[in-house]
């Protein structure tokens, strides 16, 4: 039997994008949420997606593991075309870890059970092996003493770290994070970001939707700013966050980086949007 942690056949070939998205469109009814998105993530790269609420960030992430079916365009992950006709979507999803804003831990299972179940049911690992891996991962996210706790007995930060361990247990080649710290009390954010930072340093390919600008600045190789269902600009964090080229990016950043100033500037912002549209 092949080790479950090994990359699947054809994956991880040098030079190939870990994630490659072309002409991605997604509509809910008449509401076009993604209006032609093109971008890629190289193996080992950490890309942070930022942008105002409702700009389509979650939808983009959910299209990458086909929780949402794209209306048009292609999504390739480790070279496999997920939008192709013969794709084994369950097999593809095993290589893509997903961490949700609301954790979505399985409440009827302990922390250990949460990390074990998909190893057993999907990868068919034997229980002792699955539990050994689960314990290692829970230790890695700092929860060695919480293996027997149920989600309801854990803080939000602890739950989210269990969720990260659960995703890692499948040996993913890409990890998707959808605002992993947005539902957390401020004092718990650091633990989760610390785990993510460790993961990035270990070379994991990561696509992270976040409002944590300091994390994006320090950890991301590239930052993508989205608004209105399109990518407005992208580049290294030092450029996009500290020296944005577009007025819309500036308006968004001023709001996120300095919430008090933003409230005052809300009225001005819509003027800036109009100015930006004229520029374009």
């Amino acid at each position, binding site marked *: 039997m092949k080790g479950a942690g090994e990359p699947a056949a054809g994956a991880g070939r040098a030079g190939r994008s870990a994630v490659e998205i072309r002409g991605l469109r997604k509509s809910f009814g008449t509401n076009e949420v993604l209006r032609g998105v093109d971008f890629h993530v190289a193996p080992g790269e950490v890309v942070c997606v930022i942008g105002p609420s409702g700009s389509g960030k979650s939808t983009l992430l959910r299209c990458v*593991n086909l*929780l949402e079916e794209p209306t048009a365009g292609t999504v390739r992950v480790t070279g496999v075309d997920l939008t192709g006709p013969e794709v084994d979507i*369950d*097999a593809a*999803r*095993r290589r*893509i*870890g*997903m961490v*949700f804003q*609301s954790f*979505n*831990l*399985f*409440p*009827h299972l302990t922390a250990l059970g949460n990390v074990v*179940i*998909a190893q057993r*049911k*999907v990868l068919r690992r034997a229980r002792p092996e699955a539990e050994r891996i689960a314990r290692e991962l829970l230790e890695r996210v700092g929860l060695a003493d919480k293996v027997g706790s149920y989600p*309801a007995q854990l803080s939000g930060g602890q739950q989210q770290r269990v*969720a990260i361990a*659960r*995703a890692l247990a*499948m040996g993913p080649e890409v990890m998707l994070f959808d605002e992993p710290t947005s539902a957390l009390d401020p004092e718990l954010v650091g633990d989760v970001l610390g785990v993510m930072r460790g993961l990035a340093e270990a070379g994991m390919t990561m696509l992270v939707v976040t409002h944590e600008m300091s994390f994006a600045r320090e950890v991301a190789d590239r930052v993508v700013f989205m608004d209105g269902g399109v990518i407005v600009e992208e580049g290294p964090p030092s450029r996009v966050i500290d020296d944005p080229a577009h007025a819309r990016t500036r308006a968004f950043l001023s709001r996120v980086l300095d919430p008090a100033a933003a409230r005052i500037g809300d009225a001005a912002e819509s003027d800036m949007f109009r100015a930006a549209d004229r520029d374009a």
Partner: protein
Amino acid sequence: MTAKSAEAAEVGAAPGGLTRRRRRQLSLGGQYGLFAAAVVLVAVLADWETLRLNFANWDVARSLFPDVITVGLRNTAVYTAVGFGLGLGGGLLVALMRLSSVPPYRWFATAYIEVFRGLPLLLIFIFVGVGVPLAFPGANIPGGAAGQAGLALGLAATAYMAETIRAGIEAVPKGQLEAARSLGMSHSRAMRSIVIPQAFRIIIPPLTNELVLLCKDSSLVLFLGITLEQRELTKFGRDLAGEQGNTTPIIVAGICYLIITIPLSLLARRLEARQRRGQR
């Protein structure tokens, strides 16, 4: 009256010079008095000696043991258990069909639920006892009377439990299925390992109530042709009451039902209360 007298009551002084509070005390006292008088009247008018001989005759009661337990109670439990088992399996199946994306499955499930919830249970018993042997000559329902009783109860219970189980499945947050799918579980695997276990946890109280109803409804076996050894509590009680010309066996049978149903009802109420407390 009304407007004026209400006003008087508001002010606190009624025409008779009584305060509102005092009048309520008098009215409550009157109600208690009436109730007590009714109880006393029944107690005085009843022929206690005849009652004792007919309803609580120790000699008759003693003669019922151990058969009332080893035959009556046992068969009631067996018919109920078979009906509950079939109802649980059938209910899950029909609930999944009801939620299926395949229209004919949904149509069948809806039709089944409406038909079997709309029929008197007695009719279903007669149908199973008379109709099935006529329709399929030579085809014996396995398990004899227990099989027939269980089938009749199961057909009805399937319809009720299908609706309960469907509600339970729909009460499991959508994120649970998404988290399971994102780990690479197929839809059916995610339902089996993640969604359905949580749904059953939610619906344990209503299922317990269903068990109580089935226990009582198993008395309809009365209308199937059954042997002496297959009698359950009601038929047993009725037969012996007839043989002995004494109502005590009915009372004993009734007490046997309550021994099963009251603890179950209490259990259901406790589980419900615990669940309400446990909601976080």
